[in-house]
């Protein structure tokens, strides 16, 4: 394995974690707002406060880790993506601020639970993936042109492309589906039957749209980026495994059995699909301008980053384990029997 591949694999793995924990976070906010809208508010609010509040900062670090790591391992991406993403990334930052401030002001602080704020928080959860996911469309090429030696984003092409919109729609359905499956499990663990029933319905409802939009993207790619499409076809069996795992999740949720296993299968489903997509994208970071090889940092920096990464992971994994044991696997905490907030 070359250093380039090791570097991108680590970053892709962290992006995958962000997709999962971020989706749970974004979707929960949306469901919360939706139930406030339909006056079923208290069913979900507790669950969200118990799980999301302690871990949202950790969720956010996965995102920061990804882009800081990207600059570290592939500094040339700063030039291409940094220049072109000013507007979309700034919008994403604003949305992120709405979410962060909701935690700061509404759940930690004086409990400002104004309805408008709940809706804003919920809506930002949908707009955020919608504003981040077009980056994936951009990476497929055709939207960034070199004008006077500097990269420029062609907004018109980007926003009229069916590929962009399929990716945006996929990001939305995936967020809602991932979140609903996780929260079904969490609500069930908390012994909250009402919430479990409601979330189970959401999970089943969003399953079909998620898989349909995912398939749609592959079809879009066929016309947009034939080279990438061909490589995806070479990896058809990975996408096959992913589909089987999807069916497993839906079956378990349908039969109201083993919600924990259902969530694990879901993580497996997204993991295989996400990595199959990543592998088929190789070696390009940005079609056709940038590959992982021509944008890679120097060798001494790469090695020192990897050493730092391994050392950091040694510190991080036990801490993450402790965090999840306390807030995810601790029965009393999940059920709301123990409250030790400062």
């Amino acid at each position, binding site marked *: 394995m070359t250093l380039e591949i090791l570097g991108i694999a680590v970053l892709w793995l962290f992006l995958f974690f962000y997709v999962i924990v971020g989706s749970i976070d974004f979707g929960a906010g949306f469901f919360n707002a939706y139930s406030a809208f339909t006056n079923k508010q208290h069913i979900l609010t507790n669950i969200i406060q118990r799980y999301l509040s*302690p*871990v949202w*900062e*950790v969720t956010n*670090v996965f995102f*920061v*880790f990804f*882009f*800081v790591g990207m*600059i*570290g*391992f*592939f*500094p040339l991406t*700063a*030039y291409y*993506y*940094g*220049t*072109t*993403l*000013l*507007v979309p*990334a*700034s919008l994403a*930052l*604003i949305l*992120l*601020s709405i979410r*962060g*401030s909701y935690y*700061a*002001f509404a759940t*930690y*602080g*004086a409990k*400002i639970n104004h309805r408008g704020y709940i809706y804003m928080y919920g809506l930002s959860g949908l707009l955020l993936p919608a504003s981040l996911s077009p980056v994936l469309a951009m990476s497929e090429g055709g939207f960034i042109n070199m004008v006077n030696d*500097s990269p*420029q984003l062609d907004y018109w092409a980007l926003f009229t492309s069916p590929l962009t919109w399929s990716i945006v729609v996929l990001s939305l359905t995936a967020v809602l589906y991932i979140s609903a499956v996780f929260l079904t499990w969490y609500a069930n663990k908390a012994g909250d039957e009402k919430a479990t029933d409601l979330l189970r319905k959401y999970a089943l409802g969003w399953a079909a749209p998620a898989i349909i939009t995912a398939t749609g993207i592959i079809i879009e790619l066929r016309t947009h980026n034939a080279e990438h499409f061909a490589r995806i076809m070479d990896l058809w069996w990975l996408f096959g495994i992913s589909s089987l795992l999807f069916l497993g999740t839906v079956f378990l949720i349908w039969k109201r059995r083993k919600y924990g296993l259902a969530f694990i299968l879901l993580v497996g489903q997204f993991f295989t699909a996400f990595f199959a997509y990543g592998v088929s994208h190789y070696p390009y970071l940005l079609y056709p301008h940038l590959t992982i090889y021509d944008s890679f*940092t*120097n060798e*001494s*920096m790469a090695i*020192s*980053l990897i050493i*730092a*990464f391994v050392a*950091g992971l040694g*510190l*991080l994994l036990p*801490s993450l384990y*402790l*965090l999840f044991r*306390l*807030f995810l696997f601790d029965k009393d*905490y999940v059920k709301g029997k*123990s409250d*030790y*907030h*400062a």
Partner: protein
Amino acid sequence: MGFEETAFLSRILTLMTLSFHILYATIGVGVPLMIMIAQWVGIKKKDDHYILMARRWARGFVITVAVGVVTGTIIGLQLSLLWPNFMQVAGNVIALPLFMETFAFFFEAIFLGIYLYTWDRFEDQRKHLLLLIPVALGAAASSVFITIVNAFMNAPQGFEMLNGQLINVQPLLAIFNPAMPTKVAHVVATAFMTCAFLLASIAALRILSGSKHVYHKKALYLMMKLGLVFSIATALIGDFSGKYLAEYQPEKLAAAEWHFETEANAGLVMFGVLNGEEVKYAIRVPYALSILAHGVPSEEVIGINELAENDVPIPPLWIHYLFDTMVTIGMSLAALSFVYVVAAWRGWSFIQAKWFRFLLLLGGPLALVAIEAGWWFTEVGRQPWILRNFMTTQEAATTSGNVDLMIILFGGLYIILGIGTIVVLTRMYRRNPVEQELAQRQVQKGGEQG
């Protein structure tokens, strides 16, 4: 939009983001230590007032941290969005501390979550206190790593530039650059100092608004002692920073001091106005500049004119006022805490007077002003460079338009976040004053004088 204008607008947006973020970042670095000390004192003295102090501070702290996470994410990404050419070089040479900072923050965020949600979960308070150590360490480490990157911008090393190509990169050499020791020490010490004065300000405010509870006096005394310790540390480090500047960035020192002619026995210029090269209405402290720069009065300090003759770009001369603001506030706070601690020890009663408490109330906000002045000083003082002697700020900026729109967008965001923080914090503490919480928790211990 022209390149020059884009670069200027990018500077404005970065200035806005950093000026806003640094307030939260400073609190984020300093307050965990204060919480730790209060909780530790509480355990040692078996005084529940201090334990409650730690608890109440932690409750407010988490709100500032949440906003700090948001603004920190913003500046992290804005660096690449606004200065893509700089980040491309930085990624190659100084990415290691940036990368380590995310780990440090990860560590801090995890344990902060655990610490906050486990109050009273342990029989033994000491176990709970242990959970705070990673928070304080992670917070301090974050500031160390980020300051290293800033130090590198002032004194870049650990690489060579050959025909626009970076060769022979040595990440560790880049980290241990000459600016790093003084800069890191200065940032960490001033964060502790600022937080001590901020928390003291809050206690002073409560006393001034009529609360007679001993809780506030204990908080005030503890924070003034810490404020004194860290302001002495800051003054010592400041002296070393002067020597660093004289050696490695003489143009910054000369501009800050309006020191035009190279000379020995150089005096330190404080305040004043500039009329051409003539300094008017200033206070001159004889020999002080030579001592600051080299430790002895007889040493020569290089002046602006000599540097300009050698084609060294001179930063804008108005940084003199930023420098003065920072140093004056720092010194005044050191004096204030010194007087308070001595008077409290000798039992002098003037520190109980209203006017003195009013000074204590001013301490916290002034410390924040000094933090802002200090960062503006070091950033403007590095101009025209973003990476001294290698890349100008102009060259580093984005070529993309729309920066003006982003200024409006983020400006609005910072105003909302700033107001939100103040409203939420005051509302939270006002709804649950110390007296009420003490009564609820039926704290009986803690009667002894602090």
